[in-house]
Structure formats: structure tokens, C-alpha cells
């Protein structure tokens, strides 16, 4: 069973629009939530992360919104660019076991 769930599986937006990627989890011990970005033929790379003590984390055009009570988070990409086209993975880990668990990913396509 997937401990981390992502939706949608794929998403297409136009250049300049805001893309919203969703993530949810079940294990209440998870307290660290990184998002990784993966381009074809490459390994994933850290994009942005948030800890459960925060409800928002911003880095340029990328923002994570976190709702601990509902065990949900989302990644917002504002002013989407064609170069943002990639697969985005939400992950989660807990202090007592640092092996991160990943969701199934959202494939984002940004059309010019």
C-alpha cells in the first residue's frame, strides 16, 4: 500500500498559469516532506521541502502548503514555464526512520 499518495497522475497547464500538485499521507509520524523534481533520463533532485511545524514554505515560484490536521500538502508552481515540465514526487519521512517514502509522482507538462 502506498504510504504517500499524489494527484493528479498527470497535469497540463499553459505557460504563465499556476500548477497545483497534491499529496497526502497516512503515517502521523511523518514530519519531513520534500518534493523532488525529475527530468527524463535523470535521477530525482530536491526541489523544496517543509517540516510539519510549518504550514507554508516558499522558494521563488514554488510554494508548499501543508495541512497537518488533514495530512495533506500541495505544491504550487506559479508562472509555470516550459522548463518546469518534469515529474514531481512528494516524499515523507519520520525522525525514527529516515528512509523516505515516495508517492507515485505527477507528470507536469507546461505548454508554451
Amino acid at each position, binding site marked *: 500500500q*502506498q504510504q504517500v499518495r*499524489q494527484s493528479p*497522475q498527470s497535469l497540463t497547464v499553459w505557460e504563465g498559469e499556476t500548477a497545483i500538485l497534491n499529496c497526502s499521507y497516512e503515517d502521523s509520524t511523518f514530519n*519531513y516532506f*520534500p518534493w*523532488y523534481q525529475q527530468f527524463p*533520463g*535523470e*535521477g*530525482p*533532485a*530536491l526541489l523544496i*521541502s517543509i517540516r510539519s511545524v510549518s504550514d507554508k514554505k516558499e522558494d521563488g515560484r514554488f510554494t508548499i502548503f501543508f495541512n497537518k490536521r488533514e495530512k495533506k500538502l500541495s505544491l504550487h508552481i506559479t508562472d509555470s514555464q516550459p522548463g518546469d515540465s518534469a515529474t514531481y*514526487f512528494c*516524499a515523507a*519521512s519520520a525522525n525514527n526512520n*529516515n*528512509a*523516505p*517514502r*515516495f*508517492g*507515485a*509522482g505527477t507528470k507536469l507538462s507546461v505548454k508554451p
Partner: protein
Amino acid sequence: EAAVTQSPRNKVAVTGGKVTLSCNQTNNHNNMYWYRQDTGHGLRLIHYSYGAGSTEKGDIPDGYKASRPSQENFSLILELATPSQTSVYFCASGGGLGASAETLYFGSGTRLTVL
């Protein structure tokens, strides 16, 4: 720059054969991980290690063994490969110091096809 190198980049194996996937990291990280990536499943954790000589089972360890002979090297072993193990395998290291302690650094992946 953190570096994780996987070999081979591509591998074709026969059913029932033994396959060894290798991973080397120059980050001096304590933790190393093996994931497989399949469409619809994302990245699933197979085995991981907290240091030389240690290995831990992840979520899908059946059919796989792991070996961590040194800080730098972490291998994934398929003793009897099956077609269901056809996938892209990623190695990662983590557990560095400071702000990047929980960041994983991934290799470029090994595409394994079992015929």
C-alpha cells in the same frame, strides 16, 4: 558537488540469472538507499543502509539482497532474476551534515530488463 554513480547504466539479464547493480558515492554520507521506479508506482524502497556493514529491508525487499561493504559502496543483488524485476533502479545517498542532512542525492539510474 554531491556525486552518486551507478553501474551499469543499462543491463539485460535472463530469467534465473544473477544480477548485481552497483552504486558508489563520494559524499561521505552514512545512509544509502535503493529504489525502483515503475509507472504508476513512483519510487518504491527496496533496501537501505545506515553505514558500512548494515542493511535494512525496505517496503519491497522480496527477491533482492543488499550489501554495504564500505561507506562508499552499496550493491543490490538479484540472485534469481525474474521478468517482474524489469524496472529502473535508483540509488541514493543521504544523511549529510547541517541543512542538507535529510536531502537525498540520486544517481542517474540503471535500466534493467529481464527476459
